[in-house]
């Protein structure tokens, strides 16, 4: 397993957000994590990305446990959230150069050029990020996340705030990212979009996974019905 989560509990004060959640992902799987607002999706991704400590339970990624081996996990993770995690007053290539130094990427300049090509921003490489549209910033955010060639990618509602064209461009990049055999976990509210992207759909509701299905076992047109049923049963 690339990701293994057992009996995960997360409380903020007395309020439980995750209540004994079990979750596992095979290498190369693309899992869409669906759920209503407040289900704990973002909290779960923050724990996977080592930004938050679990209250109870065990989490391991690529064989390394959290929080004990967080640095080894971070080296293997790429994270994209609805915020770009980019500096507006630096150019696109300066942002990537900064993160290349932080991740100690070898042959950084070559890799930066390749990543900018991948996300279609080579022609804007010397422009300040604050002059970019939301869609361009999100594509560069994906470039930042894949810069160190991580084995596992976490996407937290990456389509938030994007228009249709930007969403389509983002989907193309997401497919390219997944096509390289990376393990992907993505949270989303947009069922029609994830129906085309993911290989597995899990529903998180009230802090536990209430349903899970492989795309190959279900007609993607029935995803909404599957989702609603999982929420109702929770």
């Amino acid at each position: 397993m690339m990701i293994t989560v057992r009996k995960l509990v997360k409380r903020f004060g007395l309020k439980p957000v995750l209540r004994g959640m079990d979750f596992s992902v095979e290498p190369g799987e693309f899992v869409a994590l669906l759920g209503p607002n407040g289900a704990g999706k973002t909290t779960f991704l923050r724990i996977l990305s080592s930004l938050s400590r679990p209250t109870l339970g065990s989490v391991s990624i690529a064989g390394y446990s959290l929080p004990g081996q967080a640095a080894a996990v971070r080296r293997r993770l790429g994270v994209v959230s609805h915020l770009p995690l980019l500096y507006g007053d630096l150019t696109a290539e300066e942002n990537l150069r900064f993160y290349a130094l932080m991740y100690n990427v070898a042959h950084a300049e070559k890799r930066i050029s390749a990543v900018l090509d991948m996300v279609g921003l080579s022609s804007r490489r010397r422009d300040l990020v604050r002059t970019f549209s939301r869609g361009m910033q999100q594509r560069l955010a994906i470039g930042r996340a894949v810069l160190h060639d991580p084995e596992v990618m976490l996407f937290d509602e990456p389509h938030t705030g994007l228009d249709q064209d930007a969403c389509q461009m983002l989907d193309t990049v997401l497919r390219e990212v997944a096509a390289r055999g990376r393990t992907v976990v993505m949270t989303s509210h947009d069922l029609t979009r994830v129906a085309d992207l993911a290989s597995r759909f899990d529903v998180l509701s009230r802090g536990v996974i209430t349903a899970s299905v492989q795309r190959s076992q279900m007609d993607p047109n029935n995803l909404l019905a599957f989702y609603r049923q999982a929420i109702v049963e929770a």
Partner: protein
Amino acid sequence: MQPIPQTENQVRLKEPSLGVAQFIRSLSAIIWKDLAAELRSRELLSAMLVFALLVILIFNFSLELDAQARSTVTAGVLWVTFAFAGTLGLNRSMAMEKDRGCLDGLLLAPVDRSAIYFGKAIGNLIFMLIVEVIVLPVYSVLYSVNLFKPGLLLVILLGSIGYVAVGTLLSSMAVQTRTRDVLLPILLFPLVIPVLIAAVKGSTGFLQGAQAVDIRPWINLLIVYDVIFVAVAFMVFDYIVEE
């Protein structure tokens, strides 16, 4: 859009090293990033500088002082100015990280988190020293006081280090809250009272030509405070920034 380059598995991270070289590399990267961003936006420095100059102007017009009184109040006015302008800078510096999620970006990097603390702290110290370098001559002209004494400059450096060491730690805590603008000074000022008292006493001593034996205890207090709070920040920063 280009297809993804066939470099997967060829892209290599250099040998994982959490040693001194990686620590210095990440620290330098954070300092470079802060300076480069500030060079473009001039948001932080201009706010600190305008605020500091306004404070010394207001003091100049509100306190009508003779030459003797000037040498007595100069250190106090200077350090009030530095403290207020410094708080403004500390708040802004960490808010810029938080607003676009960049603080998470830093915390996601596989580096020792104390490198993040020291990178931010050194960046903040550089900004504070730049403001002080500009404020000192202006103050000298307005108040007709010679501030360019090596001892006084040493006190300013030590006081600024202590102020920034605590301030960077507390601003990384305050930035996680909704009331960050208010919370930082409330947390910071009680903790930096020893620095401010020692800095004011030490500065006054140098300005009034006091004996070295009278000034040394204040310098020692500043050094001890700096060492203790840098060490405390080194130990607790990881826990402060983690949920």
